[in-house]
């Protein structure tokens, strides 16, 4: 069985990758993909902790499934917004979508 630190390390690596993507990418779709990465690292954490701390109860796995569901819904909404923006301005550069400032 893989020890817990390995799992946590992998999740941290994945999360950092996701965060890096979110912070650096200009394309909105890529940012969405990076967010998915972060969500999945969280899922990994949940499952890992559940397996090692409370092996008899499936709470962690259950939460992971909830997160996936929410992520799916979020992606649906975000993609719809991005689609509208792409239609309107022919561009999905996140730096140029700056209507909500001061």
């Amino acid at each position, binding site marked *: 069985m893989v020890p817990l630190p390995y799992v946590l390390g992998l999740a941290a690596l994945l999360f950092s990758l996701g965060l890096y993507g979110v*912070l650096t990418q200009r394309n909105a779709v890529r940012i969405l993909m990076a967010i998915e990465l972060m969500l999945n690292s969280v899922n990994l954490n949940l499952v890992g902790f559940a397996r090692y701390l409370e092996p008899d109860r499936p709470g962690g796995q259950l939460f992971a499934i909830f997160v996936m569901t929410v992520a799916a819904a979020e992606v649906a909404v975000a993609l719809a917004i991005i689609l509208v923006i792409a239609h309107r301005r022919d561009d999905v550069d*996140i730096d140029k979508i700056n209507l909500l400032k*001061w």
Partner: protein
Amino acid sequence: MAGLAWLIPLLPLASWLYIGLPSHRASTRYDRVGIGAVGIAFLLSLGVLWDVIRGGSAAASFTWAVHGSTAITIGYQVDGLTAVMLVVVTLVSLMVQVYSLGYMHGDRRYKRYYAVLSLFTFAMLGLVLADNLLLLYIFWELVGLSSYLLIGHWFEDPANVRAANKAFLTTRAGDVAMFIGIMILFSQTGTFAFGELGELAQAGAISAQALALGAILLFAGAVGKSAQFPLHVWLPDAMAGPTPVSALIHAATMVAAGVYLVGRAYPVFAASPEAMQVVAWIGGITAIFAATMALVQADIKKVLAYSTVSQLGYMMLGLGLGGYTAGLFHLITHAFFKALLFLGSGSVIHATGTQDMHQMGGLIRKMPITGWTWIIGSAALAGIPPLAGFWSKDEILLTAYYANPTLFWIGVVAAAMTAFYITRATWLTFFGAPRDAERYAQVQESPRVMTVPLVILAVLAATVGFLGAPPLGAPFAQLVHFGEVHHLEMTSVVTWGVTAAWVLGVLVALAIYAGGWISRQRIISGLRPVYTLLKNRYYIDDAYDYLFVKGSIGLAYVVGWLDRVVVDGIVNGVAAITRWFADATGLFDREVVDGAVNGVADGVSVGSQAFRRLQSGLVQSYILAMAVTVVLGLAIFVIGG
């Protein structure tokens, strides 16, 4: 029968309501309702009179209002005077209403005319029956109202409206004084009832000053209503109304109400020698004063109007000198012969279309019935025996002869003038050559509804005097007397004085107008100032016009000026101050309160400038800040933990 007396005024009241209320049936003959009601009232009055002659009487009263320990009652009483007055009022009213069928035929306000006649008859009968001053006062005002309505019957002409207003306001001046008089008597005795008032006054229960003041103020009401000097000015102008109205209201009944009031409250007057003196002198002055003005009138109705004023003065003279029976008897006889004369003049006016006697003349050939009844009426007025006026005037002058020689001679001179002016009017109207041929050609005798009342009244004017004739036992005095029935001894001075008066008056008038022996022009030019003075009614009307009418208008201007300058000034000043204050608070509100609010907002706005740059709109910078914050937080947690 006397117990049914209360029913008599109710008949014209019902008739008034029936005629006066709006009705959709335009074809209803309103006149018949009015005549029927007053006809039945007349028959009832005759029954009451018959009952009273045989010793009957009736009275009833009920409490109207209670204030503290004072109860105000109203009711009616029937005695000799009431019964006689009831008959006179209903009879003259009946005659006038029948006569009006012809005179007012086709009038545009025929219905209103009959309605108000009924109202007047109701009010006058109520006045006669009232057993106390307060109720009498109510009816007193009601007859004044109907008089006003009828004087202004043809209100399209502003002159008629002015005449109606003049009559109403002039009598009102007397009425105010009368009301004060009533209140003085009430405050002294606590009662309005004639009976109690009379007993208390006779018993000396009222102080002499209060009694005199109350009685004189009461008499002021009579002065207004009976057109006595100095409030006589309205009656000649009241001739603007239809002539039958003049006959009923302004000759026979309403103007006699003042005399009736003095008669009804006689115990009160008799207890105050001062008040009696005032009544007698006002009456005497009015009698001669109005007679002089009647001498020069060209308008046939004006002659009769001044004559009425003069005769009412006679009645007051008689009453004031203690001739209770004589004064009231003259009221009765005068009612008949003056109603006759007025209706006769109405017949003439109806036929000729003018009231100016200078445009008449010779009418007796075309209008024999009107002419001969007129002659009977004028002979009665002049006091030619044995017609009605002779007996009553004789009684008054006889009373005056014993009581006050000065007033006796004034009365004799006035009697001579009476004979003169009525002979003059008779001659100018009915005899001589027609002065206006065109009018004369169109004249014809009035219809029978007009001549029949004339004949009936002429018969009465000729015969009613015998009721008071001493040779026949003076039955009137048995019925209407104050204290003991007493007869004054006839003296030759009075007999000859009275006879000389009317003979002289008639002869001088005939000499001037019929014979032409004395030139009219020479008299006028010889007495130019006097003639002018008389023609202008002694300038009393003008003086009143200046004093009261112009004075009121002037006062109105002054008050108006005060209103504009002072009252409006105060109001506008308050408004200006309020506005100024509002401006000040507005300024405070805008500058201080708004300034504080806006200052706070501006301060926040300026203070926030520094922080708004944080809101860059770059999502990734926010996320970076979040991540850094979380990492730092965790680091602090781990290291510090």
